[in-house]
């Protein structure tokens, strides 16, 4: 082990939390393999690891959502069994989840009051509103207790999640990938809050896959790889390069964006586009841009600033209220997804399992999800099952999709393989425009690299690529031009040379830069 425990536990007070050889197995995989670590009061302890390294499983066990198969959890030196979130909360363990667990239709105060001991039956939120304002001031978490959660930005919603935990007097706070929905500036605000908590004597577990954040806010860091602890070390002496090596295990070359030919003519024209959200307000406002053939245009922005609605408009899933969308000479405004597909628009959707595939249908059937209507898979009103199977077998091999068979239901596949399947399907028709939403979100390094290579190959083939991502490094590495969206408007257009994470961050936060 690299950098072991600082001192034997017998000489001081025991650490606030200690995990001893926690193991959790799922069918076919050991998610956590004998994980041991300790967290002290007044410490920010980072848990660093890639997607799939086992961080979420560990958190779920700490918060009572999963039970460990082996090993024990000690709290202030005493063994505890955490069977439910309720147990966790009563032991003083609180979680700020990555995907917020908030009731959107309710107010902030109602969300905090939910399940909170000591709240009166009548007028449950009255006293709480005062308390929330006080806590907000003390920790630097301003939020209006009477606001409805659906009206709040992602950063504000996170504050509600933190307040929910603070109001319950927890002593150990777990934050799961808390910066994934924040701008760099908002993240810095969050780090201030964490430091305040540390000063108040809280223990904090901070889960992330971003090295900079570890260096900036953590006192100690535990690195997880493939379910195992590879090291626990103080942050003070650690370097970025060393943490990266520990996390990944091997050097990964960043994708090479070198192009074989310059971009061609403008292909996608978006003019004066206004799109409404499900709730009826304008989520996309007066957006104008073009994408050239053989060009990757990246769209950077904090989640919830109109990206989803813009993507849906560009792929025929949402009818714009105003404006035009043209592909080459063809006006596609207001047409449905079939017309867009037939015009040459491919779409790698944001929500893989709910939109991109039909989990209960087979790999082969999912591969023809958009092509079943056309030859060679369709012969008149009939499906040519032999052609479908041959195509599926060939595609699975070419794109290295790992699946039990082409007849196996897609729900048995891992996220990375589902994404490969989607890309294989979308690229089969040699699209003129590829709209890719968060294409590497949640994928491991290998799968992400393959996705990046495919996107670059599409660009080199001459397709226009519109890449929407919250991963700024991905945007910076792949894009020929970068657009920034804030509050439904395109607030900047930059070349990769002009852009930096810092500058993008300010723009994404709506601060002119």
């Amino acid at each position: 082990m690299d950098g072991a425990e600082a001192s034997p536990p017998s000489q001081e007070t025991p650490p606030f939390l200690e995990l001893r050889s926690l193991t959790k197995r799922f069918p076919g995989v050991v998610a956590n393999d004998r994980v041991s670590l300790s967290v002290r009061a007044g410490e920010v302890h980072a848990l660093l690891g890639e997607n799939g390294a086992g961080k979420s499983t560990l958190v779920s066990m700490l918060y009572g959502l999963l039970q460990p198969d082996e090993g024990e959890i000690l709290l202030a030196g005493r063994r505890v069994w955490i069977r439910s979130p309720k147990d966790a909360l009563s032991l003083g363990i609180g979680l700020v989840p990555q995907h917020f667990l908030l009731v959107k239709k309710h107010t902030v105060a109602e969300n905090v009051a939910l399940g909170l001991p000591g709240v009166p039956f009548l007028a449950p939120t009255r006293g709480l509103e005062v308390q929330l304002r006080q806590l907000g001031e003390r920790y630097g978490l301003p939020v209006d207790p009477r606001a409805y959660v659906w009206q709040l930005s992602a950063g504000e919603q996170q504050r509600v999640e933190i307040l929910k935990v603070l109001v319950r007097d927890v002593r150990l706070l777990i934050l799961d990938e808390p910066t994934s929905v924040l701008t760099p500036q908002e993240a810095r605000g969050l780090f201030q809050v964490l430091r305040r908590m540390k000063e108040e004597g809280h223990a904090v577990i901070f889960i992330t896959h971003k090295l900079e954040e570890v260096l900036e806010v953590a006192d100690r860091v535990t690195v997880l790889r493939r379910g195992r602890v590879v090291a626990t070390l103080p942050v003070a002496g650690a370097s970025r390069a060393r943490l990266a090596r520990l996390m990944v295990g091997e050097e990964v070359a960043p994708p090479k964006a070198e192009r074989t030919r310059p971009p061609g003519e403008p292909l996608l024209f978006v003019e004066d586009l206004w799109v409404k959200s499900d709730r009826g307000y304008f989520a996309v406002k007066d957006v104008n841009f073009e994408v050239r053939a053989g060009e990757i245009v990246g769209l950077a922005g904090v989640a919830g600033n109109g990206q989803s609605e813009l993507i849906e408009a560009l792929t025929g899933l949402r009818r714009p209220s105003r404006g035009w969308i043209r592909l080459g000479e063809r006006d596609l405004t207001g047409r449905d997804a079939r017309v867009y597909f037939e015009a040459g628009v491919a779409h790698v959707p944001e929500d893989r399992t709910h939109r991109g595939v039909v989990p209960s249908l087979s790999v082969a059937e999912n591969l023809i999800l958009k092509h079943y209507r056309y030859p060679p898979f369709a012969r008149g009103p009939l499906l040519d099952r032999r052609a479908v199977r041959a195509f599926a077998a060939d595609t699975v091999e070419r794109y290295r999709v790992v699946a039990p068979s082409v007849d196996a239901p897609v729900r048995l596949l891992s996220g990375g393989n589902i994404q490969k399947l989607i890309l294989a399907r979308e690229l089969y028709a040699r699209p003129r425009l590829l709209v890719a939403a968060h294409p590497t979100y949640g994928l491991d390094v290998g799968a992400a690299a393959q996705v990046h290579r495919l996107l670059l190959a599409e660009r080199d083939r001459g397709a226009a690529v519109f890449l929407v991502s919250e991963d700024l490094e991905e945007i910076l590495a792949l894009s020929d031009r970068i657009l920034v969206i804030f509050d439904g408007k395109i607030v900047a257009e930059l070349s990769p040379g002009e852009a930096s994470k810092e500058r993008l961050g300010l723009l994404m936060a709506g601060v002119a830069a």
Partner: protein
Amino acid sequence: MVESWWVSTLARGLAFSAPLLLAALGELVAERSGVINLGVEGMMILGALSGFAVADASGNPWLGVMAAAGVGTLAALLHAFFSITLRANTYVSGLALTMVGLGLSGLLGKPFAGRPLAHPLPKLDIPGLSSIPWLGPGLFQGQNALLYLALLAAFLLWYFLYRTRGGITLRSVGENPAAADALGVNVYLVRYLATAFGGAMAGVAGAYLSVAYRPSWTEGMTAGMGWIALAIVIFAAWDPLRAVAAAFLFGAFYHLAYRFQAHLPPEFLKMTPYLFTVLFLVLGALGKSVRLGAPEALGRPYVRGER
């Protein structure tokens, strides 16, 4: 006379709407917790039969109402077990409940058919209030006690839903059970209780028919009212006070159609409640509140760790 026309529309419309409102309020609570119960019709008819049987045997109509509530609760718990614990298809489980309820009540109700109830629920005049112009005579004269109970229940439920701790818990479980679970709320317990309440109310609604409205037992006497109650929940966008309005509107429409029946064959009159229901649902679907009012987790079984 304009006033008597109005009074009778109000009075008869309310009398007709009471069972719909009772059943709708119960289903509304169940659906607010995320559980759809298509067994309302079945629970209602079982309530009607057990209410009549107990009222008949004991001579006390209120005992009948209580028995109906109990039987409705038991039936609803069966649905709760299937749909919440066993995570079976909610629709099919509810349909099964309706089928079994209709069949079983037909089977067991034979001996009670065609017999009037000696002691039905009393009709009440509320002194003082019944002299209020326009509203008084229709609302407070000669109406059945259960109607007032239904109206009272609607207001109490509204207060419960939006102004109490329990209401927050119930609504949260229907909107985002994972959020409630993460804060220590027992999602299953809340859903069981809400579903059971729905059953009790459906049972009482059935008893209103057999112990108060038409104090007798006829096979199939609920005649689709349970389904209409389900439609009212949707049309009311899951709000108890709107449910009062929707149920009354329904009752009043029906009564008006009844008044104009002289020119039409009786079969057309019998058709109207069902046509109204379709019409109501269409009108509701055109508005925004129904779309946004539905609890987000409606009809989805909750499993910890699944999103």
